[in-house]
């Protein structure tokens, strides 16, 4: 991706619009060739309808009514000609609409795939800087805005053909008649463009105010209990009424723009037709044209009234499309990807060796640079359990996220079994390193898929026995057994709601089932009962033992001293620097800061326990199993 030219549009507005349209059509060449061809057929057939009506007038209606028997014989012939033209026109319309619709849907899908590819490629740091809501609306609202212009586009191109054919036909008949008829076209196009220019901002404003009215209503209803409790319904009504009145004014404005332009746009073809009748009669009096020619020209104006509006639709959609496209391009052009290397990470027995060499992490913060980690040297032997301890903001999460390469250090190196993580090929790290974060994300899928993160039948997907074993070690197997459907129970928005602790344990099972050689727990048991937490940590080492060979390397950020005490080594981190490294007991003895921290942690743990007991005594259910 790094070698691709930027997608962001540059140059004048016209140039950017043209590029936008061209790129869109080029991405679906077959559909757009068909759509434009069908639209051209429609344009030509529309002119043919008016020509056929004119011809029928001259060759059949006028002479037949006047009593010409030859013309009377041609009545059925005229009917057939008109029917054939009608069929051609309908086919043109059908083809134009169908292929234009297909193309429109295909371009939308194209943008959406591009955006999500990029969402999946960009690193976590980029995601933290871009709120999820914004990214989602990128895939819906921005894509809709960027593609709105492609719906009427083939129509408008067909209308160009229609105008050219009409002009040629009329000029061949009579210059004066052609001038009278065709003057309407530029006038109608101009009126439509002016209309869209006025309409677009008015409609946008109304749309925005609709959202604001909804915001006020939503907030006010959400605070309904407060409003009732303080008796402030009058105040809320006033607040809502003010915004509603703004919306009313905006809607009236939209209506007024339509009210003025609709009649103008309808008026133009009517006035054009009348001009054609006047000029046509004059030209007929000189013998230059027949009644049929006049009817043709007049009829043409009647049937062209709607199609010429297509230009207005295209031009009206363009500004919105440019804004939407620019937003999409900004995401697609983002260059924050963590490029993978090419080396494999041989799968040795037992845990991974982890080494951080003089690691520093800087992030931009409010115009300056904040240093999150600095000069960190840590060496973790395979199979060791390491606890990372430090006060809030010490850099614990930053440190452990480097191990799974969620981001790269600004300075220094992170080595897994001696290889720099930046040199490892894509997929190598996740296959051997599992990171469990404090916030657990549950996919809208079954329990099984949430643990395996694979589809049934995928190569290397763990079997059910492995899933149950992981659930057992994470102490969540009983919960799953109770769910209707067991492993097949749906989770997520539609499915069963798990408590915070249960979700965390599910995430641990998700990590364990992959048999990682390095397990990173970032405060991953914060919502789990301390007793259960100890059980899980205990089971982790015994599970590794069962597998034969050395235990998994575990690096965990923890707050409970009971958990910290289980670690072989404790890394004490403060202000982004390593203060001390060593076994818990040694640190307690020699590191004053660590002792204070340990006491504070103990106090906090005790306070939480007391609170749980307090609430339980007062009759509240304080168990973490409560939903």
């Amino acid at each position, binding site marked *: 991706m790094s070698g691709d030219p930027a997608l962001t549009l540059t140059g004048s507005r016209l140039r950017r619009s043209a590029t936008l349209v061209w790129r869109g059509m080029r991405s679906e060449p077959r559909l757009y060739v068909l759509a434009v061809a069908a639209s051209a057929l429609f344009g030509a057939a529309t002119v043919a309808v008016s020509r056929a009506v004119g011809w029928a*007038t001259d060759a*059949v*209606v006028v002479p037949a*009514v006047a009593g010409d028997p030859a013309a*009377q014989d041609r*009545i059925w012939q*005229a009917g057939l000609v*008109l029917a054939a033209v009608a069929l051609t026109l*309908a086919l043109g319309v*059908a083809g134009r609409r*169908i292929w234009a619709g297909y193309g429109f849907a295909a371009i*939308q*899908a194209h943008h959406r795939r591009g955006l999500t590819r990029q*969402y*999946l*490629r960009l690193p*976590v740091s980029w995601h933290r800087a871009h709120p999820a809501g914004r990214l*989602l609306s990128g*895939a*819906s609202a921005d894509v809709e805005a960027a593609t709105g212009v492609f719906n009427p586009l083939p129509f408008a191109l067909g209308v160009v053909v229609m105008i050219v054919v009409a002009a040629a036909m009329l000029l061949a008949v009579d210059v004066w008649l052609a001038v009278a008829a065709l003057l309407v076209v530029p006038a109608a196009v101009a009126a439509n463009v002016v209309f869209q220019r006025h309409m677009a901002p008015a409609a946008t404003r109304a749309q925005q105010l609709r959202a604001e009215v*909804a915001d006020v*209503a*939503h*907030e006010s209803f959400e605070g*309904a*209990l407060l*409003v009732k*409790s*303080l*008796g*402030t319904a009058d105040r809320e*009504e006033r607040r*809502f009424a003010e915004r*509603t009145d703004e919306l009313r004014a905006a*809607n009236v404005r939209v*209506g007024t723009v339509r009210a003025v332009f609709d009649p103008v746009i309808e*008026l133009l073809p009517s*006035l054009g*037709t009348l001009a054609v*009748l*006047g000029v046509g*009669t*004059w030209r*007929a009096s000189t013998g230059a044209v027949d*009644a049929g020619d006049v009817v043709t020209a007049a009829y043409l104006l009647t049937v062209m009234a709607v199609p010429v509006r297509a230009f207005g639709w295209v031009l009206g959609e363009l500004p919105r499309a440019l804004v939407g496209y620019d937003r999409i391009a900004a995401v697609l052009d983002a260059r924050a990807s963590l490029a993978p290397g090419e080396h494999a990470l041989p799968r040795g027995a037992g845990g991974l060796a982890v080494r951080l060499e003089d690691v520093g992490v800087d992030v931009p913060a409010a115009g300056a640079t904040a240093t999150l980690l600095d000069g960190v040297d840590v060496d973790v032997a395979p199979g060791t359990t390491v606890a990372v301890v430090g006060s809030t903001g010490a850099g614990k999460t930053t440190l452990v996220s480097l191990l799974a390469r969620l981001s790269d250090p600004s300075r220094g190196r992170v080595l897994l079994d001696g290889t720099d993580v930046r040199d490892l090929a894509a997929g190598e790290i*996740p296959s051997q390193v599992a*990171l469990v974060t404090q916030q657990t*994300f549950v*996919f809208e899928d079954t329990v099984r898929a949430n643990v395996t993160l*694979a*589809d049934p039948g995928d190569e290397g997907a763990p079997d059910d026995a492995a899933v149950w074993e992981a659930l057992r070690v994470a102490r969540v197997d009983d919960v799953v057994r109770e769910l209707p459907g067991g492993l097949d129970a749906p989770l997520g*928005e539609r499915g069963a709601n798990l408590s915070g602790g249960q979700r965390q344990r599910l995430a641990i099972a998700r990590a364990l089932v992959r048999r990682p050689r390095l397990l990173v727990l970032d405060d991953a048991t914060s919502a789990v009962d301390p007793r259960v937490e100890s059980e899980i940590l205990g089971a982790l080492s015994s599970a590794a033992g069962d597998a034969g060979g050395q235990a998994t390397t575990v690096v965990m950020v923890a707050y409970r001293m009971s958990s910290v005490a289980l670690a072989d080594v404790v890394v004490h981190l403060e202000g982004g620097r390593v203060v001390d490294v060593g076994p818990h007991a040694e640190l307690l003895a020699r590191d004053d800061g660590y002792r204070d921290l340990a006491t504070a942690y103990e106090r906090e743990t005790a*306070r939480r326990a*007391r609170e749980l*007991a*307090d609430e*339980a*005594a*007062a009759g509240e*259910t304080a168990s973490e199993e409560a939903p």
Partner: protein
Amino acid sequence: MSTSRIASASELGVLATLRRGVQISPQIVDGLWLTLALAVLAAAGRVVVPVAVQRTIDDGILAAGGPDAARVALLTGLAAGAVVVAGLCTAVVNVRLFRRTEAGLAELRVQAFRHVHDLSTLAQGTERRGALVSRVTSDVDTISLFVQWGGIQLLVSTLQVLVATALMAVYSWQLTLVVWACFVPLFLVLRRAQGTVNRAYAAVRQAVGAMLGAISEAVVGAETVRAYGVAARTGRRVDAAVETTRATQARAQLLVSSVFSSGVLVANLVLAVVVVVGTLLGVGGGLTAGQVVAFLFLVQLFTGPVQQATEILNELQNAVAGWRRVLAVLETPVDVAEAADAVPSPRGPAAVTLRGVRFGYPGGPEVLHGVDLELPARRKVAVVGRTGSGKTTIAKLVTRLMDPTEGQVLLDGVDLRRLTLSSLRERVVLVPQEGFLFDGTVEENVAYGLRPEPTGDAAGTRARVTEAVEALGLSDWVAGLPQGLATPVGQRGEALSAGERQLVAIARAYLAAPDLLVLDEATSAVDPAAEVRIARALDSLTSGRSTLTIAHRLSTAEASDLVVVVDDGHVVEVGGHEELAAAGGVYARMHASWVAQTR
């Protein structure tokens, strides 16, 4: 969640809905007759051109003495004038309709919004917030959008078809019948097809929803996706959802296009029919050549309306359905209403009495079985009991969020139902567990407690807020906020911590200055520093006021003047903490277990 107390839609028929809607928003029919008269003129303008064509051909080009240019010039000049006048009428009709319906709909919105607030918390609670919001937003928008894009079309198109038919009938009733015979079946077929089209669009909406769900996993689960290296699988899931969306969109487009182009086909085949039948009639002497040609122009006046009519009728149904949903809100009876002869309750120390109070939620079992209770003025009272014992119900009855099914709740000896709601809300304020904050600054949220709403005096408001902050010992906390009192709290106060939100709620209650404060104690854990601040602020807030606390912690009961123990809908014990702890009853057992667990 129990079933909603607010009907999903009013059960009125279409006409009754319109009648009732107009009753609530009478602005809509202001000057309707003049608007209609102008609309008839506007529609008449549409047949000027076909008439001009007919006269030009019969009296101009085919005139006995050869084409008569002067006569046609005069004729077209007059016609142009008529067309312009009709255009002006159209503009005036449009503006009049927009102004009046929008005024009426704004009124409808505000009334429905107010009605939602007037409903009891019980009725509000039976409906999801989002569903209530849509009653005053998207449901009304449906009506508004219908008026703007479909309603006027429907009016003008109907008149256009009527006027065109009238003119055609003047030329030839036989040919008029033929034209109608072609368009009526087309209309019926299109109407049926509309159902299929609607289902296709519903499928598109569903597919888009599922697709956004899949994309949100890639976005919200960004960390998990990377930590487990499952980008490829997530990508496949998204791609599948995107493709489903594309395919359903394409299918819907195929359907719509087929329906639309068959309409185009029929409309143009009618031209052939008119030429054949019209000329045959003309040969028989029933029609002039100009009249046959005029018919071809008049048929065009049918095409648009017939094709759009199905879509517009569909929108009309949506609009009526939207209207019904809004009306359903207004039809929901206000269950906790102010009595017609209500009296204001004078300020002063507040004492509350419950006399034989029974309460059951609608359709549910009784939760309070005859409660008698005296809550003395200016005392701190704590109510304790298990979840579901009925303690929260007592708080809701004392604040008159609900009325008892039997018995009385009295404030200073007067039944709450006899008091004006405004005076009651002034004297009795509930501070709920989760303090709700509006998306504004800390100051705006605290000042929300000021009643009546302060108008214009920013400095005065600031002074009152500062005073409250000082009185509650929160000055250092405010000073520590990034922008002090001007710090934005974010949506629902999410920029603040749970503890900080409680502090704002307490300051707000302080400015509300009630005589009786009903506190639903928060259960969510907050950090120790905030805990201390909250306790201190609550002390200042409750001092000198009657306080009723729904206690979730025994430590709160311990610090109260009087403890009320509720069990299974009955008040089982009332007394001081020491007294009850020694009495060997329910409270003593709760207390003993608490002591055992915290030691």
